[in-house]
């Protein structure tokens, strides 16, 4: 039985459809990421699972039991918010103890639990401080401790890293992943950052306009995107998309290589690549330009620094892509088309 399952879940705010018939099943102990641009419904979906928002239609099951109508505190969930939502007027210890107090736990058991949670995250020495005296990373740990202290079965996180400095973010991400692996708790994580999603998720649910466009492992959503949206949302720079007579085809910038550089000799599709501009970024080179017969579409190629082949601007170069790396999409609907159905 899945820890978290939603069936045909929808949420309407007046005329606006925030979540549109979503089906989702999480696996035990997995780190499931809800990924999408702002407004795609991922946060609304998370909040409905938490019980902070009431669905318009559909079912939410936690541990096989329908939880619609139950308040958040009855659902055995814990949540970490974007701002961490630490109670500013309470010490760290009281912050962590607060959910236990609400349960009516007696003071002795309470302080033992608080101590346990604090040790789990290495914040024992912060117990008497106030949130405003803590750094961003420390606050995250307090938020996690407060969430964990109730020993929930599901862990919900709403973009907890987005308020941190870029430098801190990597360290905080590492912290988070390490702890999740250790505890093994089923986690649902909301983010708009596809790099984060790829790095952290066991599976990613890519969402747009209230629907899940694709659910799969990072490898699946990256290399076998279900539609144009997923193809272009994942990957930085995004996938190159070109129009053919009655379909779209695409390939990723790192798959677009100069002739002769490609390692395998397999079936490669050649292109004439006119380079307009080159960006040297240290570890990579980005080449901006267009290919013959598709003059209006901007194409980007990404070469690692290890490829030292000199390439001049304002010149044509011979480039190619492995045939099995090309992805095909329907021109009007955007969904993927298997290569075999097209006669190429």
């Amino acid at each position, binding site marked *: 039985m899945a820890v978290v399952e939603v069936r045909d879940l929808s949420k309407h705010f007046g005329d606006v459809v925030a979540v549109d018939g979503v089906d989702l099943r999480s696996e035990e102990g997995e780190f499931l990421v809800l990924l999408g641009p702002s407004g795609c419904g991922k946060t609304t979906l998370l*909040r409905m699972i*938490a*019980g*902070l928002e009431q669905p318009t239609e559909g079912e939410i099951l936690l541990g096989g039991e329908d939880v619609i109508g139950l*308040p*958040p*505190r009855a659902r055995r*969930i*814990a*949540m970490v*918010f*974007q*701002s961490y*939502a630490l*109670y*500013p*007027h309470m010490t760290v210890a009281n912050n962590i103890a*607060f*959910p236990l*107090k*609400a*349960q009516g736990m007696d003071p002795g058991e309470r302080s033992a639990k608080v101590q346990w949670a604090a040790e789990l995250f290495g914040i024992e020495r912060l117990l008497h401080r106030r949130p*405003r005296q803590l750094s961003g990373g420390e606050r995250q740990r307090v938020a996690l401790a*407060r969430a964990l202290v*109730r020993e929930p079965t599901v862990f919900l996180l709403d973009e907890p890293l987005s308020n941190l400095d870029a430098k801190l973010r990597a360290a905080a991400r590492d912290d988070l992943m390490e702890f999740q692996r250790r505890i093994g708790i089923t986690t649902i994580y909301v983010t708009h950052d596809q790099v984060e999603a790829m790095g952290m998720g066991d599976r990613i649910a890519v969402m747009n306009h209230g629907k899940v466009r694709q659910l799969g492992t990072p490898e699946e959503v990256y290399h076998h995107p279900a539609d144009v949206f997923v193809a272009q949302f994942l990957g930085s720079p995004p996938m190159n998309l070109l129009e053919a007579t009655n379909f779209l085809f695409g390939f990723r910038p790192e798959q677009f290589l100069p002739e002769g550089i490609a390692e395998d000799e397999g079936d490669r599709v050649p292109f004439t690549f006119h380079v307009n501009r080159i960006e040297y970024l240290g570890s990579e080179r980005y080449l901006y330009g267009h290919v013959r017969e598709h003059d209006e579409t901007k194409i980007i190629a990404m070469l690692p620094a290890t490829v030292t082949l000199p390439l001049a601007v304002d010149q044509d170069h011979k480039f190619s892509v492995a045939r099995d790396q090309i992805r095909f999409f329907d021109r009007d609907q955007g969904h993927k088309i298997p290569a075999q159905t097209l006669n190429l």
Partner: protein
Amino acid sequence: MTTAARKRYLSDNPRFLAALFMSPAVIYIIALVGFPFVLAIVYAFTDISTGNPELDFVGLETFRRVLADPVFREALWNTFWFAVIANLLVVVLATALAEVLIKDFKGKWLVRFLVLLPWVAPVSLATITWLWTLDSIFSPIDWVLRELGLITENMYWLGRPGSAMASVVAVQTWRIVPLAAVIVMAGLIAIPGEINDAVAVDGAGSWRKRFQVTIPLLAPIIAVAVLFGVILTISDMSVVYVLTRGGPTHSTQVLSTWAFIKGIEGGALGQGAAVALFLLPVLIGITAVVLRLARRREVL
């Protein structure tokens, strides 16, 4: 920069602009607040009256006469206690009302309208409605109580010292609660939504949430509301003047009405000024206490 250039760009010079922008207000306030304030102090050291309009310095004599008067002590006591009791009630009621007004419910617009009336109606006019409601013969409250068999004789609300004082406090509370509620409402809105969400997830019920999270976070705003309420109560003269004129037998007298009765109605300007000057220590005293209490609960 040359002097010519400095002159041309005068309208950009911040210091010039600051002086230009602030001086009208500052001059006005100094002239019409500062100067009369000094004058009030001067008057208190003279025996000036409408019959004797010269400023004859008499040392502390005027103060002595004022302080010797038992009515003065009654007025000082009342000024302080009316303000304290009324505003304690205001804090509780306004916080409760703010919580109600934050929510959505049918008829909210009407409730808001009715609840605002005591505050937006001019003070003396609002007090007149109370004067009539508490009338010694025709009070509808008395009628209801008589019909229910709870009393046989009318209560003479404004005619007995105890109920008169309670009525004054009630009217002050009644008119200030709307303002305080609006201020507290602003504070409630300012609490980040994620904090409320965290409370829901952490499992606190509404009473725990109210006392352990919401009210502590509201403390600074509540302090502001109390401050306003205290200043409004202490510096008000119309409620007592219209409701009881300070009676019966001076039991509801406050410093402001007593100063008016002595100074303007009685003509003893020096004494009136002296009485009024005592408003300052009461105001500053209570303000200082409220600010200190607010600072102790330093939040955020």
